[in-house]
């Protein structure tokens, strides 16, 4: 039986089973035969079987009426009567397919400091929201980016729905290779208190426990030969030292507080990747506080948003901040900056100082003690 296009018939009359049997003798297959009221049954069958069964019912004096179409036929008839709905659905699907042919978003991930440069580069090549998808070739774009950014380890360019995703992994630069064959000393890269000095080549010039200054020779680039004479060599070694690193930040003790004058204004803006439009202009030449509310009109498929800006006119008043609050904020900022500066070092100790040398400004200094290798090779000028 055709499973898609079916109709439901209601057959009624005395001994309606005989009618079903006669239909059965003619090879009519029925589904969902149900007993109804008043000696009637409802059956489901194909439209052709329904026509045969109706003709047979009329011939034998039974009553047959098409009760209701079911399955796909029901939807076909429903959409046939509402052709506007069908047309609308077709237009929607066509628009969606058309919209899917464009790049709606360019996402740059994990680019770190390169993000702005990568975005500018893509814009230079015309890879911006709104470009046709067929004009973007991810593999070619990946090669271009890898060529343009040699310090990036690898680039991944792929489609994520209607977005183009560019993912970068920054390479770790290889350590500076010392120039082989040149004689020279190992010096201190920064001030510190020496904890351990290991000389692989050359003669140690300081001892553990010494305070050394930046540039001071730690391992001299010479060794005593078998005959007692000094032979110039390329000094090599490791110098672990306690080093103190400080960072400072300045915070104003004065701030401006805004107070509403009572005047308000509103504005609605429609924003798309290509343009934005507003029936009214934003207020200018005055000081306003703005509250912005964004509604995604097109859902996840169409990046169209309706933005509502509520402006409230304010006047600014100069006022002094709480000293405790500034101290806390400064401590947090200095601590964060210090951690960023020492991201690869192990911090042994740390403290924070506050000073108010300048009027209306507080300087917060965070200092940390770390342990690191301060040995750096320096070639002697008169070396071979």
């Amino acid at each position: 039986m055709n499973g898609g296009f079916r109709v439901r018939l209601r057959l009624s009359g005395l001994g309606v089973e005989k009618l079903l049997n006669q239909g059965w003798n003619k090879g009519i297959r029925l589904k969902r035969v149900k007993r109804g009221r008043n000696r009637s049954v409802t059956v489901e069958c194909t439209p052709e079987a329904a026509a045969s069964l109706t003709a047979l019912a009329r011939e034998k004096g039974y009553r047959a009426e098409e009760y209701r179409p079911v399955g796909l036929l029901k939807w076909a008839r429903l959409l046939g009567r509402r052709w506007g709905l069908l047309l609308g659905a077709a237009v929607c699907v066509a628009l969606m397919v058309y919209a899917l042919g464009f790049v709606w978003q360019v996402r740059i991930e994990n680019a770190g400091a390169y993000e702005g440069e990568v975005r500018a580069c893509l814009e230079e090549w015309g890879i911006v929201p709104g470009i046709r998808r067929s004009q973007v070739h991810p593999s070619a774009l990946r090669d271009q980016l890898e060529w343009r950014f040699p310090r990036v380890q690898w680039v991944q360019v792929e489609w994520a729905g209607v977005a183009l995703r560019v993912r970068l992994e920054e390479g770790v630069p290889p350590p500076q290779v010392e120039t082989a064959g040149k004689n020279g000393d190992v010096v201190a890269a920064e001030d510190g208190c020496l904890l351990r000095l290991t000389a692989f080549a050359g003669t140690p010039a300081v001892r553990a426990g010494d305070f050394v200054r930046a540039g001071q020779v730690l391992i001299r680039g010479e060794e005593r030969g078998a005959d007692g004479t000094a032979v110039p060599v390329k000094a090599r070694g490791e110098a672990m030292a306690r080093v103190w690193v400080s960072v400072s930040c300045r915070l104003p003790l004065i701030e401006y507080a805004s107070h509403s004058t009572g005047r308000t204004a509103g504005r609605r803006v429609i924003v798309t990747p290509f343009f934005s439009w507003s029936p009214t202009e934003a207020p200018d030449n005055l000081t306003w506080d703005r509250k912005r509310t964004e509604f995604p009109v097109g859902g996840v498929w169409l990046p169209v948003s309706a933005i509502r800006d509520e402006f409230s006119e304010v006047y600014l008043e100069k006022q002094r901040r709480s000293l405790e609050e500034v101290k806390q904020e400064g401590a947090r900022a200095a601590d964060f900056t210090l951690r960023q500066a020492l991201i690869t070092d192990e911090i042994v100790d740390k403290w924070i100082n506050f000073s108010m040398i300048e009027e209306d400004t507080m300087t917060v200094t965070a200092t940390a003690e770390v342990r690191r290798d301060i040995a750096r090779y320096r070639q002697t000028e008169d070396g071979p």
Partner: protein
Amino acid sequence: MHKRDWLPPEITQGQPRLVITGRDEVLLEGHEGLFSYETGNIRVRTGAGMLQVMGENLTIDYFGVQDMLIRGRVDGVQYGGDGA
């Protein structure tokens, strides 16, 4: 042994084949037509006589040339001699 003895009786002798699944479904293969239909009682002609399916809310889910599938709450199945 005759070769026909190897074949099942529903093929060689026109006997019906009845499959009852739980108390919800009765599949009848090789029927010879519907005799009467009520929601509590369905009688079907078969080569073995009148088959009566008793129960509640019985519906004929499929009424084909060879097969008939009855669904509903099945209380009993019984053969009778009349009307065959």
